[in-house]
């Protein structure tokens, strides 16, 4: 399991075009927003939590089709399926590798992008916390979507269409947590709901991902 994780991480770092791209995309989205809505800092600080969450979500979405598609094309997915490691474990590791290469860097970079959008002072810890809790769910749900569409040529657009509705609850609670934190309101309910979604998704969704992957591999 660990060697698979290390292999995936190495591929993501060395193969190029994967690792830094998500962050760059996140930066561009953050830079483009003030051009779209105007530079007043009062408006920007009001919408900053939502924009940062949306940017992180879209950056996550961009790299989803890399989770399984490359392994599918060169046949290593078939090898993994016949290995003693259960497929549920494989998809969990894939999701973890995806999170380590996109979700975690996005979370760490988010405070700096928050500066660009003049996020209010008390919002920073909550923004980082909400992304830290929420992005694993995005990776796991995305792996399910990638497993669904892995057999389809040029399935990238379909993948986005399938996965985006699944992101709704995570986005709502994540952005709400960051917003309430920034405005100094009570944060317990969205925090617990976000944590519940993430852990529930991590516990259950790999089974569905492995099921559809088996269908696609047969």
């Amino acid at each position, binding site marked *: 399991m660990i060697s698979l994780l290390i292999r995936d991480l190495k591929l993501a770092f060395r193969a190029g075009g994967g690792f830094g791209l998500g962050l760059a995309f996140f930066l561009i989205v953050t830079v483009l927003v003030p051009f779209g809505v105007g530079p007043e800092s009062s408006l920007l600080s009001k919408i900053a939590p939502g924009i940062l969450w949306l940017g992180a979500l879209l950056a996550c979405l961009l790299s989803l089709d890399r989770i399984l598609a490359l392994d599918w094309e060169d046949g290593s997915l078939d090898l993994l399926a016949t290995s003693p490691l259960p497929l549920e474990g494989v998809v969990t590791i894939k999701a973890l590798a995806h999170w380590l290469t996109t979700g975690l860097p996005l979370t760490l970079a988010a405070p700096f992008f928050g500066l660009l959008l003049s996020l209010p002072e008390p919002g920073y810890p909550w923004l980082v916390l909400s992304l830290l809790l929420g992005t694993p769910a995005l990776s796991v749900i995305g792996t*399910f979507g990638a497993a*669904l*569409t892995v*057999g*389809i040529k040029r*399935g990238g657009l*379909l993948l986005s*269409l*399938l996965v*985006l*509705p*699944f992101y*709704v*609850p995570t986005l*709502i*609670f994540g952005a*709400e947590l960051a917003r309430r934190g920034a405005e100094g309101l009570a944060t317990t*309910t*969205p925090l617990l*709901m976000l944590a519940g*979604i993430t852990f529930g998704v991590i516990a259950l*969704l790999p089974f*569905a991902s492995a*099921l*559809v992957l088996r*269908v*696609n591999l*047969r």
Partner: protein
Amino acid sequence: MGSIWEYANPVKFSRTAGLVLPWVSIGATVTLVVGLVWGFFFTPDDYRQGSTVKIIYLHVPSALMAINVWFMMLVTSLVWLIRRHHVSALAAKAAAPVGIVMTVIALLTGAIWGQPMWGTWWAWDPRLTSFLILFLFYLGYLALWGAIDDPDTAADLTSVLCIVGSVFAVLSRYAVNFWNQGLHQGATLSLDKEENIADVFSTPLYISIAGFVLLFIALVFLRTRTEIQKRRTKALLARERLG
């Protein structure tokens, strides 16, 4: 009659559907015409909402169907995954376009009703928002059916999508509730509430709901039967090419 699983046999299903179809179609036509005509022309205007209230005879039944069609797809998807009856998977496939049309009707009539009543075509009210999300789920489901060539793979994948999607649709419903307060009133047709609508309005409403249900059954029978025949034609053509 025997058990319901007999109808998992495509031949038996087609024959029974063929027998039932004309009656269900007639029933749907009659109830829809009676319900809608009665609703539109023979009910009094509401004292506050005026004649706009009459769009309820389209709005409520289509909204009900939009959700229940998804529920029916969930059940047939489970039956397909557990018992591998092809008719079940085909019925889910046949129901989805009907469901998405119902969702669109509910959203459109809601907008048309909301404009004079709430002063806006669209608001991010929880029910409106969850219907929009339901629409997106239907869209993804149909897109997945369209993207895969092998029918059994498509049936498997869409079934899992439908089941996981149901969980997320319910989650979204509650998330959206938490996220914004609503404009919609509470229950309209529950059995024990004081705030139910008056009988003058509810009788034609029940009739038009029955009409929508019958229409849905007729369409699903028709579409499932067509799908079975299409597969049979394909199999026959393939055999001909071989022989």
